[in-house]
């Protein structure tokens, strides 16, 4: 049997909890190369998402993620609102009406979400954005999801963290950090950091399932 909507709900709750815990850290990172609001933005959004979860837990995974996406778009603002919002909207659309979600479906769905972010934000690899954390994570999942979902999820989380750290020395070319030019080099990207938190939450909650 596959991954249940309850599993996804648990993962979203964990993501919300950890964003709350990382609120100050994410905002501090954004202070250095942005406008000091990424933690505040993500926490505002995930707090709103949390309120919807109870009513969505028993439905379809597709409906769950679409609602999460709409909620983030309507509450976060900034760059991360539309980006994360589109990510979850596309994920939900990819899962569609499916009652039974397989690890391969999850990998396909996350790829669709990532494509949505890239389509909207036009960021390339090495532009120093969340895309640099998400891309290797999704690739790791695509590679191993069917063989061993738990292991693939762990690899994905590690890949996200590696991507997050790999771009720290780079000069940002997208988002607010790009306004700093050379000064953005050497600072960890807030969005890549929140994206890594997302994949860690998926690892810790979906690993048991599937």
């Amino acid at each position, binding site marked *: 049997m596959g991954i249940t909507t309850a599993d996804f709900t648990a993962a979203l709750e964990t993501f919300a909890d950890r964003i709350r815990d990382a609120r100050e850290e994410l905002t501090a990172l954004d202070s250095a190369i942005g406008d000091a*609001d990424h933690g505040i933005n993500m926490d505002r959004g995930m707090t709103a998402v949390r309120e919807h979860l109870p009513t969505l837990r028993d439905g379809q995974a597709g409906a769950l993620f679409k609602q999460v996406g709409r909620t983030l778009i309507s509450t976060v*603002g900034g760059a991360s609102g539309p980006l994360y919002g589109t990510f979850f909207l596309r994920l939900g659309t990819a899962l569609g009406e499916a009652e039974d979600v397989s690890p391969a479906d999850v990998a396909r769905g996350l790829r669709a979400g990532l494509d949505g972010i890239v389509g909207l934000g036009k960021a390339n690899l090495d532009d120093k954005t969340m895309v640099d954390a998400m891309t290797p994570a999704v690739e790791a999942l695509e590679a191993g999801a069917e063989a061993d979902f738990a292991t693939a999820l762990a690899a994905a989380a590690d890949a996200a963290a590696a991507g997050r750290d790999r771009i720290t020395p780079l000069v940002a070319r997208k988002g607010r950090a790009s306004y700093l*030019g050379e000064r953005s080099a050497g600072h960890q990207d807030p969005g890549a950091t929140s994206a890594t938190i997302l994949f860690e939450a998926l690892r810790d909650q979906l690993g048991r399932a599937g």
Partner: protein
Amino acid sequence: MKKLINLPDNVVDEALAGVALAHADLVRVESPNIVVRKDAPRQGKVGVISGGGSGHEPMHGGFVGRGMLDAACPGAVFTSPVPDQMLAATQAVNGGAGVLHIVKNYTGDIMNFELAAELARAEGIDVEAVVIADDVAVKDSLYTAGRRGVGGTVLAEKIVGAAAEEGADLATVKALCEKVQDNVRSMGMALTSCTVPAAGKPTFDIGDDEMEIGIGIHGEPGRERRKLAPADEITEALATPILDDLPFQSGDRVLAFVNGMGGTPLLELYVVYRKLAEILDGRGVTIARNLVGNYITSLEMAGCSITLLKLDDELIRLWDAPVNTPALRWGV
């Protein structure tokens, strides 16, 4: 953090409640946090809206009223508003002649406005958008987020609003806004940082003998940190890149806009204006109009920005046209 606020999360809502009470003759504030011209929608008139993070007051809410904006969408402090706001504002001001979105060039603003524009178009509302990107501190490039939208936005909103008030159609209003964008350049600097209420501490630390050159309007550090300098030197450092970028040339007529970032006394802004006038005079550039004061701010940040707009008779006429908003008022 020392601020005249209650709960940091409530500052924007409470301030908007204050705006609604103080300026009920000009605007109304509706959910989800939009400031709408009192008599909107005006049938047959192109609606002009803008929006962005809060903390830049009086921009944008202070510019809603006759001859300027029909609505403004204030987001959380320094955070672009959400599409729901721009959609609601677009619906509220649509008088059948379409709606122009004046968008400052920030990734978040662009994306949130675009999402709203799509939703509005899906409802059959004619929506056009113009992006303001006038900050010469940022090199313009296809591979980056490009230049920020700063002081030029205020001038665009006034001039475009005047044309819409006169009954210009959407295509004309859009073309005019692009004309302003093509002829306006800005650059800013900071003496101090500022504190985002929800963050609780200054966005960056800076020494008593340092300043940030090439800042935006979100309390962020600038392109480079320099040793503190006299006002005349700072004015040179801002004016020269602006003049050379367009470039502004001898014989040009300009609107010279010296803007305070929020924490700098008017006394100092006039010291800067004096030097700016001297520099322009030296280049043979004529100041035909001017604006000095705090119009596009970064909370309590100390510092200033300079904006120059190349004028022609059309732009001068529209700048002089009547405007009646909380923050800009003349001719009425």
